[in-house]
């Protein structure tokens, strides 16, 4: 009898714990977003998103965050474009060109997993040594290169996941019609997986735009909008990080505004990704 009661109590207790931790997760997300909104909204104004910092900005005078917003967009876009030139062929290599060489494909996946686990600060340090070695100064270009290496495994993984699901029969019918590897890769697989590729790109874009550690060494920081690849650039996460460290309340509140803008960008990306992947499942050939 006692054992039975104990069993029921244990059952209930752990059920309660599981329910609580799941609810905690939802509450946590709401809590984080609400706090960022609550702190960011009051200091967010048109001036914030439309102007670059003016004189005395860092003492609480006029100006906005346009330099950081544009800088971040440039950086993430550049990195994603370079990343695409490497990640798309790589994921196609695993699923079309070398699909019969299981050992090689597994080796690539293994190396990618390894790269995926390396923290962004190590990529930052690596990018910095490369930069010194090549003799370029801290610049948009150096940042783009570092971030593109850092997001490479993320992109390939997302694309590979989708390309794995392309039915083998589809590949084989294309080959049986006399297509070359390249034609199958780009005209069949890449087209079939297009929404998936876009998802991977957006995911990587989100990662690239939000990361600090990789760009801390390589982009520098400036109040101007970069006009060439060799210019230094500000980024949103760096703006959050630097301004939060300021003792002046006005400047701190701008860090919250920057954090809010960054969060909104990330949320937007997440919504678009979700929408695309839903459409993908409707249109793809099963």
């Amino acid at each position, binding site marked *: 009898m006692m054992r039975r009661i104990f069993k029921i109590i244990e*059952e209930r207790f752990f*059920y309660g*714990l*599981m329910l609580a*931790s*799941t609810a*905690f*997760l*939802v509450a*946590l*997300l709401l*809590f*984080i977003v609400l*706090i*960022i909104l609550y702190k960011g909204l009051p200091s967010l104004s048109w001036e914030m998103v439309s102007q670059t910092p003016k004189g005395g900005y860092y003492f609480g005078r006029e100006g906005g965050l346009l330099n950081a917003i544009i800088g971040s967009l440039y950086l993430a876009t550049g990195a994603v474009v370079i990343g695409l030139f*490497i990640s798309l062929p*790589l994921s*196609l290599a695993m699923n079309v*060109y070398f699909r019969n060489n299981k050992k090689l494909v597994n*080796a*690539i996946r293994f*190396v990618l997993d*390894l*790269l995926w*686990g*390396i*923290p962004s*600060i*190590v*990529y930052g*340090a*690596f990018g*910095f*040594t*490369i930069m010194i070695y090549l003799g370029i100064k801290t610049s948009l270009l150096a940042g783009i290169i570092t971030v593109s*290496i850092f997001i*490479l495994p993320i992109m390939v993984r997302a694309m590979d996941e989708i390309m794995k699901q392309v039915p083998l029969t589809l590949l084989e019918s294309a080959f049986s019609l006399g297509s*070359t*590897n*390249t034609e199958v*890769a780009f005209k069949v697989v890449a087209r079939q997986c297009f929404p998936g590729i876009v998802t991977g790109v957006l*995911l990587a874009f*989100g*990662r690239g*735009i*939000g*990361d*600090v*550690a990789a760009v*801390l060494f390589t982009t520098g920081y400036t109040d101007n909008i970069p006009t060439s690849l060799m210019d230094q650039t500000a980024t949103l*996460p760096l703006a*959050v*990080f630097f301004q*939060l460290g300021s003792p002046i309340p006005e400047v701190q509140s701008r860090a919250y505004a920057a*954090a809010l803008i*960054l*969060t909104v960008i*990330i949320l937007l990306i*997440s919504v678009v990704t*979700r929408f695309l992947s839903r459409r993908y499942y409707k249109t793809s050939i099963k």
Partner: protein
Amino acid sequence: MYLKARKIKDRISGGWVQLVLVFVFVLPLGILASLLYKSWLIMQTTGIGDLLFSSVWRPLAGEFGFFPFIISSIWVTILGLLITAPICLFTAIYLTYYGSNRLSVFMRPVIDILAGIPSVIYGVWGVLIIIPFTGRFLAPLFGYESTGFSIMAGGLVLAIMLIPFILNILIEIFRTVPVEQYEASLSLGATQWESIKHVVVRRSFPGIVSAFALGLSRAFGETIAVLMVVGNVVGVPENLFQPGYPLPALIANNYGEMLSIPMFDSALMFAALILLVVVVFFNLLSRFVIIYLEKRQ
């Protein structure tokens, strides 16, 4: 003629694919080699043993003891994992074995967005919420005084950042447990929780361990969010409510100064090398466990 153009196209893109392949295999070696090359200077002058276990940190005098940083990193990481482990485990079990389909559809974006939030945002949130919480509530509760900027705050923020990461892996792992086994246990009269405890958790135990090993390596390298709340004071912390100074924070905080002193530069690259080695080690470990698991099935 048309045929020839097709073949040429195939050659060119095939060549590019091969180039990319080579690049991906060279990249990790390149990272390792460049960090080794850069930290060679300090490893030769000080010796690895001294670097790892001395706690004297005076860069200007040329004394580099990484012990305070390593111990801070270990504390923050372990604390973060300990706090996050039960939450991830319970949520993953709930979502795979109790929750309805609608709940999983609802939770997927929640987890994805949590995973997508940049670490600097977690840092801001940590400064606003976790710091006062640790300083005014947690520390007095345990009988310490603290400003809030502490190992504890770092561990808490890290725990929250790790949740989506570990949770995703755990859900994947629980999905590989055959449903038949779970149902066989239920049909023998075991309750749901008993079946989970004795069948699901036991069966996927190596997987759970490897999920936490992956989380550990992620935690060890996390930089900005931890840096913003951990206090960044050099010294071996005596309790969890004292400030710490983990390795990634050390690298991030000193990037400006390192150029002027070659030895300092080399020291920071050595810190990056430690990070790389630790992270890769735990990654490899968990991969091998997962590969072993897949083979067994």
